[in-house]
């Protein structure tokens, strides 16, 4: 336990990227992500790696693409509006099947928004805000340690599929501190065969445009098959199961504890991958299951659609009601989550799907 140290989420995740062998970082400041960039601004230099404070978010993602096509580990990070500006670049990177990592420390709101913690970018990150058909692997940590662990692994995942990986953090997760154990420096991986090295002689594996339809379909299939991750909590005999990721999932965990103490059969599915959505998690609960409650800290309820699609897919013989509790511009509280449980159970709120 001696290496447990209190670390701020934003610092921890940046340091984990350094340890994972990040070669290039390009980014632009934005609260509540700024500490990430600040950490890289001196740490990358210390390690002899490249850091560029870009002129804007568009330049940042394109720099990352340039570094990635040379086979190097590259990443960018931002929040709300800054991520919006990267969408075109994300689509270009998808066209060339480039592996790289993004970190979105979500803040609440449309437009300038606010610094409040949120999960309001779920749709964009899982459905793609760039042009065309592509999928981004989206990882959703819920603790500082998990931020570190997922970031540390993210480059390996990205390289395995030659695909973008996005770590979907939240303002509060980036700002809070928890004890965490920082992993050792990763051995530098072999540079990939397909990289640019100036010779023009390598096969970059970009494929022709004509191949792309097939390529994205195959990639979707294989990533959906391999990469679903989640954590289930007391789902075996549950009647109503919360589905929540990130910080709200921790609130729901407490709520499950409270409800179980009251004799209620509550459970929790915590998706760790938001894309691919952990469809398999929904096969686990027993036949006692009566409904799902998606708990999200955003305004409209976004993940609830994936919960509904998954329920439709898994439960063929009966209508499985899916409820939504979107807590708006704040984390949900345990009390409110418990209330929504009873409201769903007692028919006080209507299912949305």
């Amino acid at each position, binding site marked *: 336990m001696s290496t447990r140290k209190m670390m701020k989420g934003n610092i921890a995740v940046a340091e984990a990227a350094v340890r994972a062998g990040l070669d290039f970082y390009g980014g632009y400041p934005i609260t509540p992500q700024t500490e990430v960039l600040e950490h890289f601004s001196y740490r990358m230099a210390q390690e002899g790696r490249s850091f560029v404070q870009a002129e804007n978010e568009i330049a940042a993602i394109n720099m990352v693409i340039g570094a990635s096509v040379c086979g190097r580990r590259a990443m960018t990070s931002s929040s709300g509006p800054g991520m919006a500006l990267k969408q075109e670049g994300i689509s270009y990177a998808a066209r060339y*099947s480039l592996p790289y990592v993004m970190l979105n420390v979500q803040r609440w709101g449309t437009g300038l928004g606010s610094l409040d913690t949120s999960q309001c970018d779920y749709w964009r990150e899982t459905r793609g805000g760039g042009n065309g058909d592509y999928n981004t692997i989206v990882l959703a940590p819920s603790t500082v340690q998990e931020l570190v662990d997922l970031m540390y692994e993210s480059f390996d995942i990205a390289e*395995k*599929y*030659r695909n973008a990986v996005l770590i979907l953090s939240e303002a509060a997760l980036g700002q809070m501190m928890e004890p965490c154990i920082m992993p050792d420096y990763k051995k530098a991986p072999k540079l990939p*065969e397909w990289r640019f090295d100036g010779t023009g002689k390598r096969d970059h*594996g970009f494929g022709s445009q004509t191949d792309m339809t097939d390529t994205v379909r195959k990639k979707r299939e294989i990533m959906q098959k391999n990469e679903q991750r989640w954590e289930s909590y007391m789902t075996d005999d549950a009647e109503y199961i919360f589905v929540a990721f990130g910080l709200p999932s921790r609130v729901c965990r407490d709520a499950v504890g409270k409800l179980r103490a009251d004799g209620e059969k509550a459970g929790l599915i915590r998706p760790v991958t938001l894309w691919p959505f952990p469809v398999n998690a929904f096969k686990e609960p027993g036949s006692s299951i009566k409904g799902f409650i998606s708990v999200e800290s955003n305004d409209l309820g976004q993940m609830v659609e994936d919960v509904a699609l998954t329920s439709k897919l898994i439960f063929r013989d009966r209508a499985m009601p899916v409820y939504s509790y979107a807590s708006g511009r704040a984390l949900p509280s345990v009390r409110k989550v418990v209330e929504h449980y009873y409201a769903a159970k007692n028919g006080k709120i209507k299912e949305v799907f």
Partner: protein
Amino acid sequence: MYKKMLTDKIVHVYNLIVACILKIIRVLIQIRLVFVQEVLKGMGNLIIDRERCKGCRFCIAACPKETISMTDEFNKSGYNFIQVNRDSCILCGICYTVCPDGVFSIEE
């Protein structure tokens, strides 16, 4: 990514086949090149590849000896191409310099 998913064996065989095909294509192209190139005889070794010509007439305008003129034939890409009067060519290379399409080569 896809290659990694195949076994090394398959990759190897695949590479070999690709290499073979590429070689064959190159040879074929070589043959075509020789076929279309008019090696100008006599003192000058100015070679033109009429298949590349797009008929822009830059060379005609630039040739100091007024040695180049248009044919009324069309090449495979549908362009009117040029011809050179080898007698008056002084091999100055200006046509090479101004041609946007790499039609000219000069040999020693």
